[in-house]
Structure formats: structure tokens, C-alpha cells
């Protein structure tokens, strides 16, 4: 079954930039896919479309077989609860501890506090930060901050995890740790799509690679590498 499917998707921004041209892409349940390409090739646009942060200009997008293009605004939160997202800039709240940042994600979707008290330490253990539960983002290294943000994205056990340049701000050694974490999350059965232009990571992982250039897919390769 296709977890994510883009059919003839086109995106033209308001300033007339064409970000995506007629994209067709299917990602199966449990797959790990790298979306690679230079800056401006349309990687982030795909991520934004999948979480319905921006609408498509043409075509259709299916998540778990459901067309999200005609999703009502009131149904968008439901969609996002099923998609964890991780970003280059972590998007952590600076005035909240690691624990609180993750708990916040559960609070806003209405999880009761006893569930939060169980789930947050569990997910912090998964990302290896149980000892830094009460640290604030500024007390954590960049790699640790990204782990917290992954923990937040995954705490609700979404079937899909999207990552937009998650290692963009990290050194190679730290990036490797993050990739191990994402692989582990993928092994549990989560579909992972990661936009990146980090050559070393893509080459060392040998996963499916979808390469974009000027908004078009120019390569889709199983167990691929960054460049041909």
C-alpha cells in the first residue's frame, strides 16, 4: 500500500516561481526515502505540501490512500497528528524544558496528563536523552536539540515521519547519530521521508533516493547514492 502518493503535482508560488513540475511519486508503508537535490529544487516544497502547510497548484496528494487536497481546514490537525515532522532549525520552544517541549505536543492534541507522564520519558529514552529531561534547549547541544525535536515528532507514534534537512545544522558525527535514530524509527515500521543535500549521509545509508532538479524528478533509485 502507498503511504504517500503524489500524482501530477505542480506547485507555483504566488511570485510565479515554479517549485514543482508534474511530480509523480509513491512511497510505500515502512519505506525510507531520501529526497535529494540542490537548494531550490523543490525538496522542502514537497514536505510542506505533505503536511498541508501550503496547497498544491495542480494534481493530487494522497496520504494513506486519502486525497488531502480537498481536506477541510478543520481536518488538517488530524492529518498532522499522523505525520511527525522534523526541521533543520528544530523548532523547540526556548522557554520549555526537553520534557515540556514534548509534553506540549501531546497537550495540544488533548492527551491526558497521566498518558503524558508515561509517554514522554519513554520517547526520551528512545532518543537517548532521559538524563536531560529537565534541560532547556539552550543547555543542550545542537544534536541533542534535534533528538528532542525527533522525540516530539515521534511521541505520538505517527505512521509517517517527515524530516526537512534534519542534519543541516549538525556536524558529521552528530548527524550519524541522528540518522541511526531515524533508521531505528523506520525499523519500527514508520514511513520516513527525508529531504537532504548531505552527500555522505545518503551514500552511507544506501536507501531509496529520489533526486529533484528544478522541480522535476530526474532520478528515482532503490538503494541509491547521492550523485550518479
Amino acid at each position, binding site marked *: 500500500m502507498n503511504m504517500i502518493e503524489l500524482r501530477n503535482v505542480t506547485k507555483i508560488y504566488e511570485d510565479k516561481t515554479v517549485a514543482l513540475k508534474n511530480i509523480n511519486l509513491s512511497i510505500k508503508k515502512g519505506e525510507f526515502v531520501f529526497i535529494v537535490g540542490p537548494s531550490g529544487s523543490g525538496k522542502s516544497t514537497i514536505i510542506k505540501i505533505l*503536511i498541508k*502547510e501550503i496547497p498544491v497548484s495542480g494534481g493530487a496528494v494522497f496520504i494513506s490512500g486519502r486525497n488531502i487536497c480537498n481536506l477541510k*481546514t*478543520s481536518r488538517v*490537525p*488530524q*492529518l*498532522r*497528528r499522523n505525520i511527525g*515532522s522534523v526541521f533543520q532549525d528544530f*523548532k*523547540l*520552544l526556548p522557554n520549555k524544558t526537553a520534557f515540556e517541549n514534548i509534553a*506540549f*505536543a501531546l497537550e*495540544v*492534541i*488533548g492527551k491526558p496528563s497521566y498518558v503524558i507522564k508515561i509517554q514522554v520519558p519513554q520517547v526520551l529514552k528512545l532518543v537517548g536523552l532521559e538524563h536531560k529531561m529537565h534541560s532547556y534547549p539552550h543547555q543542550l547541544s545542537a544534536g541533542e536539540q534535534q533528538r528532542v525535536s525527533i522525540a*516530539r*515528532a515521534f511521541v*505520538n507514534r505517527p505512521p509517517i515521519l517527515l524530516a526537512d534537512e534534519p542534519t543541516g545544522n549538525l556536524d558529521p558525527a552528530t548527524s550519524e547519530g541522528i540518522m541511526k535514530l531515524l533508521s531505528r524509527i523506520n525499523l519500527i515500521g514508520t514511513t520516513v521521508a527525508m529531504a537532504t543535500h548531505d552527500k555522505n549521509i545518503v551514500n552511507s545509508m544506501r536507501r531509496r533516493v529520489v533526486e529533484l532538479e528544478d522541480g522535476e524528478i530526474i532520478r528515482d533509485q532503490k538503494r541509491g547514492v547521492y550523485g550518479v
Partner: protein
Amino acid sequence: MFFTAISTVAITLFIVGFFLIIIYDIQGILTSIKSQVELAVYLKDNTTQEFKDYLENEIKSWDEVSEVIYISKEQALERFKKENEGSEILKEIQGNPLPASFEIRLSNPEKVEQVALRFMTREGEFVEGIDDVIFGQNYVQKLFSITAITGSIAFLIIIMLLMAAIVLIFNTIRLSIHARRKEIEVMKLVGATNWFVRIPFIFEGFFEGFIGSLISVVLLYFMSNYLLIRGEKAIIDTLHVKDLTILGPNNIILYIYAGIVVLGGLIGILSSGFALKRYIRV
């Protein structure tokens, strides 16, 4: 941010309220002067009782007239003596040189000229038996145009002050929301519904508006009780104006207080509602 918003609401609404009180008082003074406009119709000395009765009934039948008082020659002299008590002029008076008169008050002071004209013939002379009609022609016309102009200026000032207040409060609340846009972004990303994001901000906006307006009412209360009330007392003593904001019979000041609190709460809710629109669309 919370306190900035509260003090913005308090200060702006205080200014609005202060001007409302002042403007209401000025309008009260002007309308009271307007209603004091009256005609004096002086009768010739040789008129008969029948003519006097006939004229009184005639005047009373006119729609514009609210009150007619007959002042006989004797009453006129009494009054004159009272008004000039102790003055040299009383010694000069021999007999009674003062005419009898009708004092006419109008329900519609703007019609004063039309009413006065009824005592004139087509040739421009006074009707038989009438000596003179006095109503301060120039003064009355000017007064009416002044009240009309001050009325619209006052209205404009209040509208402009209100708009300034609304814009200021809106911007302050928008800034406080802007400062928390990251929080909103994260909430939206992890799947919070729009109402879940909105409600705390709307509550906050309401509290800022409500508490700010309460503070402005307290400030206005002290301002009126220690400062404005003295002015109004002076106005009552000298001009005999009744319809004033604080001391008047209609408790206008209470309506102003209530209005400010309602307005504060509403502006708070609406400002945060509108300001959120931009950030909630993630």
C-alpha cells in the same frame, strides 16, 4: 507584553472617557443655553384686558411654544426693583414706566424668528397693541450654528480617539501574539486545532481589554470625583445647567463607565481574534 497591552488599553480608553465627559458637558451647557432662548413681547400701556387674554390664548395655541408667562406692569416694576436693589436708579423712577409683557419659551428654539414674525404686519410694523418684540436676533443665530458645529466636531473627535485607541490596542495585542508566533507554529505543526490555539489568546485579549478598561474607569472615577465634579458644580451655580455627565439626573457617567468596560473587553477579544488570523494559517 501582558502589562504593555493592559496599560495601552487603560490609557487610551481613559482619554476617550475623559473627552466623552467634557464633550457631554459642553453639549449640555449649549443645549441649556439654547432652551433658555425666549421672546419678550412688550405690550402698549393702553391695551385692554380682552386684548391681553386674546393674545395669551393665541400664543398658547402655537405648536412651537412651550410656556407663556404674563408679566403685568406691577410685576415688572417689582422685578426691576429687586434686580436693582440699593441702586441710585430706583430714586429716579416715578410712577411705573415699565410695560406689561409676555415671556415666551419655545419647545423648538430654532423657530424663534418665525414666532417673532407673527407679531409683525406685512408692512413690517408691529401688530396693533404691541410695542416691541425682543429675542436677540444675531446672538441666537450664532448660538445655533455654534452648537451645530461643536456637536459635529465633538462627534469627530470621539470617533478619531476611538479609532486611535482601537488601532493602538490592536497593534499591542498583535505584537504580543507575534512574540509567541513560534509557539503557535509548533502547536499547528503537531496538530493542534485552530480553536485550541485561538482560545487562550482570545482569553488573554479579553483579560487585557477588561482589566485595562477597569483601570481606566478607576482613573476616570478619581478624575471626576476630585476634579471634574468641581467644574460641574461651578457650571450649575453660574449657568443653572442641569444635564451634566456626573451631576446630571441621567447618570451619564455610569453609562460611560459601563461602555468603556464593554468596549475594552470587546476590543481585546476582536483584536486577538483578528491578529491571530495571520499566524494561525500555517
